[in-house]
C-alpha cells in the first residue's frame, strides 16, 4: 500500500484546482478544524488541536480506505489551499455524503465552496458513478443549508440519517 496518495484525480474549475490532500495541507486544515466552524466537521475548540489533527488524518486515510475522499481546493491565483469538499463514506452512514468547508473567514463569501462542490458532485455522479449522494447538515448550520439549496439539492424528509437532528439534502440518486 502506498503511504502517499497516488493516481488520484485532479479537477479544475474556473478559480480552483481540486486535488487529494498532501502533508502541507494539514496545518491550515487543522487550524480550520479547531475553530468554531470546525465543529460541523468533527472538530471544534472543545476537541482541541489533537482532535482536529485526527480528523484531518481521518480524511487523508479515507482516500486509501475507499479510493476516493475529500479534495483540497487550491486557489489558482495564489496556490493556497482554501477549502475542502468531497465524498465521505464511513461504514455506518446510510449513504455517501458530500461535505464542504471554506477554511479561513477571509475566504468565505467568494463562492469557493459552491464552485468546488459543483465540480465534485458531477465527478461523483459521472466518474465515480456513486449510486447516490446526500449532505447531512445540522439545521442550525444555516450557511451550509443555503448552499445545499443553491446547489439544487432537495430536502429528503424520509431518508435515514446518522443523527436524528440532521437534515438530509439529496444531490442525486435514490435513498439506499
Amino acid at each position, binding site marked *: 500500500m502506498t*503511504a502517499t496518495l497516488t493516481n488520484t484525480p485532479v479537477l479544475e474549475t474556473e478559480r480552483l484546482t481540486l486535488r487529494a490532500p498532501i502533508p502541507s495541507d494539514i496545518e491550515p486544515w487543522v487550524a480550520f478544524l479547531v475553530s468554531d466552524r470546525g465543529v460541523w466537521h468533527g472538530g471544534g475548540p472543545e476537541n482541541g488541536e*489533537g482532535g482536529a489533527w485526527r480528523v484531518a*488524518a*481521518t480524511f*487523508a486515510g479515507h*482516500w*486509501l480506505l475507499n479510493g476516493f475522499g475529500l479534495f483540497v481546493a487550491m486557489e489558482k491565483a495564489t496556490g493556497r489551499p482554501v477549502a475542502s469538499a468531497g465524498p465521505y463514506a464511513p461504514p455506518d452512514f446510510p449513504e455517501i455524503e458530500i461535505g464542504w468547508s471554506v477554511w479561513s473567514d477571509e475566504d468565505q463569501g467568494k463562492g469557493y465552496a459552491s464552485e468546488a462542490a459543483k465540480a465534485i458532485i458531477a465527478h461523483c455522479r459521472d466518474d465515480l458513478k456513486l449510486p447516490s449522494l446526500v449532505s447531512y447538515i445540522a439545521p442550525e448550520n444555516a450557511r451550509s443549508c443555503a448552499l445545499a439549496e443553491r446547489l439544487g439539492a432537495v430536502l429528503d424528509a424520509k431518508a435515514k440519517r446518522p443523527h436524528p437532528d440532521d437534515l438530509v439534502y439529496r444531490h442525486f440518486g435514490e435513498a439506499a
Partner: protein
Amino acid sequence: MPTIPVLETKRLVLRGPEPEDYPDFKATFTSYRARFMGGPLNAYESWMLYAAEIGHWAIRGYGMWMIHDRKTDETYGMAGGWKPAKWPEAEIAWIIWPDAQGRGIALEATHMARNYFYEKLGWEGAVSYLDPKNLDSIRLAERLGATKDKDAPSVDGNDVVYRHPSPEKLRGSQLADGIALEIESYQNPLFQPKGYAID
C-alpha cells in the same frame, strides 16, 4: 513513490493497515481492551481512528503497522510509531488483540519496528506514553529496555513516559541480545518437550 514498508520477522509480517483488516481493529477498539487507548470507542469513532492510523502514514511518512501471522495472515494487533498533534515526542506504540496476548507478539513486532525507525529512518530515540494502570504494556516497555522518564513531558498528565534506549545504547548491546533471546524463546521454546521417555 514511497510505500508503507513491509517488515518481516520469523513469525510475523508487518504491513500497512488495509480495508479488510478493519473488522479485527473494530472488535478490539470497541471493547474494554481499548480502555488504555481512549476506548471503548463507538463504531464511528473506531472507523475514524482506523482511517486516521492510515492518514498518519500519509502525513508523517511513518505510522502503525498491522501485525500478521506469516503463515496464516491472521492479524494479531498493531505496532509502530505514533505522533499526532500535541504529542511531545514520537511514540513507539502497540496493541495486541485480546486473543493473541501472551505469545511475545508485541515484543517481536515492536522490537522490529523500533529497529526500523532507528536504522532506516534515523530516529535518535523514542518514548512510549503509557497509562500507569496498563501493567502489561509497562512490563513490555521494560522488556524493551525502556525506563521511566519522570522529567519528560507527557501527553496530558495522566500518562507515564517510558524512554526507549537510544540507537547507540541498543546496537550490539547485552540488552539487544537479551531481547533477541526472549523473542527466540517464544519462537522456539527452550524447554519444549522433545518427545516422551520410553524405558
